[in-house]
């Protein structure tokens, strides 16, 4: 059987999602009988030329250079998969989309005139067609593995589509929102983490981004009834997936 040729690319991000490939400690060596990391800078010196069967893309697109690269990735890859919050919604660095990038440059850099960035940090889908999205900040390595195994079996990959709230119920947790009044994004957030935050005694902070048809305005209304301060409601939605269009609506209400 011909090995599946995989390329792993990184754009503006923390490396945490591509690290999940290397965190497949139990499976990585066995997996390499079936897949080849033809391009994976973090792991290999060797670089195999394209075209690739699948490109996993981490990070948001935030510089003119990254726009060029992501277009090339698309041309060279049969399937493009965006992995993680940055690549599916712009990530935490999209917070600058709400502010003045010029002022940001001056605040962080002594020579701001040397910094060349786009006005917005955006997911790759803004510039190229993306075939699949795997959510999370970071993506779960189990989802990555399951995705690859489905591809190897010739199946059209599917991913979990329940909310964190559903996963939380399944886990038998006491609801932090209902029982303790802790603001929680679980009802509007895509599952896949196994309801980690409520299981550790805190509200979900939405790192998997909006679920399908999330109705965040209903949750927003509930937060208001609980007398949570407007600014704090805004900050809750304005985190790792702040640039997703569903959460943006709520954030804008408080801008």
């Amino acid at each position, binding site marked *: 059987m011909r090995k599946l040729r995989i390329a792993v690319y*990184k*754009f*503006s*991000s*923390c*490396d*945490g*999602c591509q*690290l*999940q490939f*290397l*965190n497949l*400690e*139990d499976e*990585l*060596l066995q997996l*390499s009988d079936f897949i080849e*990391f033809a391009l994976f*800078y*973090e*792991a*290999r*010196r*060797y*670089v195999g030329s394209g075209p690739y069967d699948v490109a996993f893309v981490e990070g948001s697109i*935030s*510089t003119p*250079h990254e726009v060029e690269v992501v277009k090339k990735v698309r041309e060279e890859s049969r399937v493009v998969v965006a992995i993680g919050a940055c690549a599916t919604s712009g*990530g*935490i*660095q999209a*917070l*600058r989309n709400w*502010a003045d990038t010029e*002022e*940001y*440059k001056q*605040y*962080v*850099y*002594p*020579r701001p005139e*040397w*910094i*060349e*960035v786009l006005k917005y940090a955006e997911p790759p889908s803004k510039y190229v067609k993306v075939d699949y999205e795997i959510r999370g*900040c*970071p993506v*779960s390595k189990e989802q990555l593995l399951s995705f690859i195994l489905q591809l190897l079996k010739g199946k059209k990959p599917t991913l979990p589509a329940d909310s964190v709230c559903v996963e939380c119920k399944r886990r038998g947790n006491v609801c932090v929102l209902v029982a303790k009044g802790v603001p929680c994004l679980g009802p509007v957030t895509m599952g896949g*983490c196994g309801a*980690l*935050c409520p*299981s*550790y*005694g*805190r509200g979900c*902070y939405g*790192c998997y981004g909006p679920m399908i048809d999330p109705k965040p305005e209903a949750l927003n209304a509930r937060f208001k009834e609980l007398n949570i301060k407007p600014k704090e409601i805004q*900050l809750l939605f304005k*985190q790792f997936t702040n640039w997703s269009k569903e959460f943006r609506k709520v954030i804008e209400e408080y801008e």
Partner: protein
Amino acid sequence: MSRVIKVDYLARVEGEGNLFVELEDGRVTRVEVGIFEAPRFFEAFLRGRKYYEVPDITARICGICPIAYIMSSSRALEKILGVEVPEEVEKLRRIVYLGEWIESHVLHVLMLHAPDFLGYESVLSMARDYPEVVKKGMKLKWWGNQVIKVVGGRSVHPVSCRVGGFYRVIKREELLPLLRELSYVKVWARELLEWVLKLPIPDLKRDVEFVSLRGEKEYPILKGRVVSSKGLNMSEEEFEENLIVEQTKYSTSLRYRLKGRSYYVVGPLARYNNNYDLLDPEVRGVIESHGYGATLHNSFQSIIARVAEVYHAVLELEELISSYREPHQPYVEGAVRRGVGAAITEAPRGMLYHKYEINERGYVINANIIPPTSQNLASIEQDLLALGNKLATLNLADAQWLAEQTIRNYDPCISCATHFLKIRYIKH
């Protein structure tokens, strides 16, 4: 005779960087470790966030060492809030941090760095000839990740830590299962150390000042005084005012120098040299039986310091987990007030400095973060300068590889360093 060594995309490092070395008559005339990782402006968008959000946000600077970001930021903010965490909470922090050291160090030692010493392009190629070393090393890394997962929920960007401690009490019965594999883990760590101690290590002599925290009774992780191998000794608050930020003509990266002194090195090598007496005697015994000792001056020996810390971490975790008692309260609530606080903890790659100013309602007004890789950048270039002769005499492919290996000695995390570096493209 002149030659140019150029690597367009550095492999086996975290983040995006490149390298340019120019040699003239056997002497290096120009070294540029370039960074083309995009800036992400963390310090800028932290302004206006609530203090309690800072650990989770700064964790996203680095997926490999999120615990380090969580701990440095939490400690800096706790100083403002007047929080002193109780001993058992501090212990739990040490447990999860040591887990990160194991995960991050083994990733680097085994998967990114060791292949250089033996001439393999990646760990996957190395695994064909050293299957047992790689398999056991991967299990060791798995265990480190498992420690973080048990305490933090997941190993990348864990969710349980907060300013003041943890969101909930981590139960003793959650931690104890980690000890089930411990007898194996200890053997794997010891064997990896012995294997690394036998690696052929290139020679490099350079006068270096090693800077790290100094532990009082324990090998330093969460706190300590800032000391150096040349007699520096100051508090973490004094650190920033003793730094000079530099920009040079040939490199657009910012670099750090100590006032009245020079460039310096942070990281496992610095910690090891400044705290050798605090390493577990068992670890020192193994090192000394292989002819190494209390000081490692050559940056190619950083791999030894890294894996010595892994073995130490495993042994210390055995003690910390077995003696763990659940705290009565998972966290300490501080008094929100206006103030400034700075703290340093030892990230796997070296000292990570965070400073915050918050207002009376708990919103961040100013933030400053100095990651270890930024502090080491100047030294990476100094090492390449010192290697001049060797780089000039080797054939070009080998010279290029050696130059890359020199950079990887520092386990550079470009994702971390980037918000302090000018992006640059070297075009030819």
